[in-house]
């Protein structure tokens, strides 16, 4: 999982956006390169030139671009947060909305779960959890210390995953008030160790 800017040109980006619209409509299995070409108003040959290897190469590029977009947005959310609570609430809200609002991802989860789930379940979840916690830890460290930051980031990633994949009756992770209550009720009391409080007080 790379956080490096895929460095795409506008043509590549246009094809990727077109492919995402196709997947949101028909899924990964039924989307053909002809569909994508038509949607992007370009030729099949152009797609092959931009993504040598065809559909698999295109799917790989889509994954990298979408992850890059996701982590870029998450970084901006973290940078805007003034304190630990806002950082956690903002992060959960951003990630949850990114997942539930991603039409292509939602189509695949609903109709082609066999494509996604093997990459994120049981031991494979390591990749997701460690990518998120490695990324988020530096933002959390000033508030909770460098030792606890990765652990906390993983904890919050688990919350996002469980509430987006299995929606709850009383918790809406797309709603700020609901997320704030969740964070205040269950997360902050487990974080506010003496050291965390001390660090928070330092101007």
């Amino acid at each position, binding site marked *: 999982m790379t956080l490096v800017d895929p460095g795409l040109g506008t043509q590549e980006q246009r094809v990727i956006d077109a492919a995402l619209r196709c997947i949101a409509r028909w899924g990964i299995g039924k989307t053909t390169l002809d569909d994508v070409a038509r949607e992007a108003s370009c030729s099949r040959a152009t797609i092959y030139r931009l993504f040598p290897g065809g559909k698999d190469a295109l799917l790989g590029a889509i994954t990298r671009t979408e992850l890059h977009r996701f982590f870029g947005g998450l970084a901006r959310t973290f940078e805007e947060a003034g304190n630990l609570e806002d950082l956690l609430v903002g992060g959960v809200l951003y990630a949850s909305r990114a997942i539930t609002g991603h039409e292509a991802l939602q189509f695949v989860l609903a109709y082609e779960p066999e494509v996604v789930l093997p990459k994120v379940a049981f031991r494979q979840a390591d990749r997701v959890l*460690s990518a998120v*916690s490695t990324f988020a830890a530096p933002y959390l460290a000033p508030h909770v210390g460098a030792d606890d930051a990765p652990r906390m980031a993983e904890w919050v990633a688990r*919350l996002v995953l469980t509430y987006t*994949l299995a929606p709850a009756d009383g918790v809406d992770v797309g709603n700020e008030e609901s997320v704030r209550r969740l964070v205040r*009720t269950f997360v902050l009391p487990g*974080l506010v160790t003496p050291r965390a409080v001390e660090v928070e007080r330092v101007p």
Partner: protein
Amino acid sequence: MEAGYACVARYGLAKTTVEDVARESRLSRATLYRYFPGGRDQLLRDVIAWETGRFFGRLAEAVAGAPDFPSLLEEALLFAHRAVEEHEVLQKVLQTEPERLLPQLTVESQRILVLIRRFLVPYLEREELRPGVEPEEAADYVARMLLSFIGNQGRWDLTDPAQVAELVRTELLAGVLASTRRDL
């Protein structure tokens, strides 16, 4: 169900047929289709649900004697983590045909969440909770965290009782119980 499970253990999900299960259970195909009008797909779905139910039944039994609520969750995590690792059929299917198992297991997990929540509520009703925390919402939160950690231990070592105790007292219960100290 037992015959179906034995066939999955032997041949995997993709290759198990209704004939295999008929032979294993010494029932006729016609009888099996009477029980499972949806045929192979329904049979396999039911076998997965059956074994998942058995797994959590064993888990509930394993923790029944715990002296207090935090200890119950510790024992649950230790037991379930080990049971997943040592579950040969589960591990084999996860390795060879996760795409057939996981969509089904994800559907199951909704039902499992409800079961764990119902299991936890009576315990939470006996505990002193932090002000403003309701047993139902706490049960839902704890059930989700349990399932998450049973699926993947992440940075924690869930074979180490000391780490499990710390995990339970921080991430699972710090926001739930009025006190998570041991010396009560």
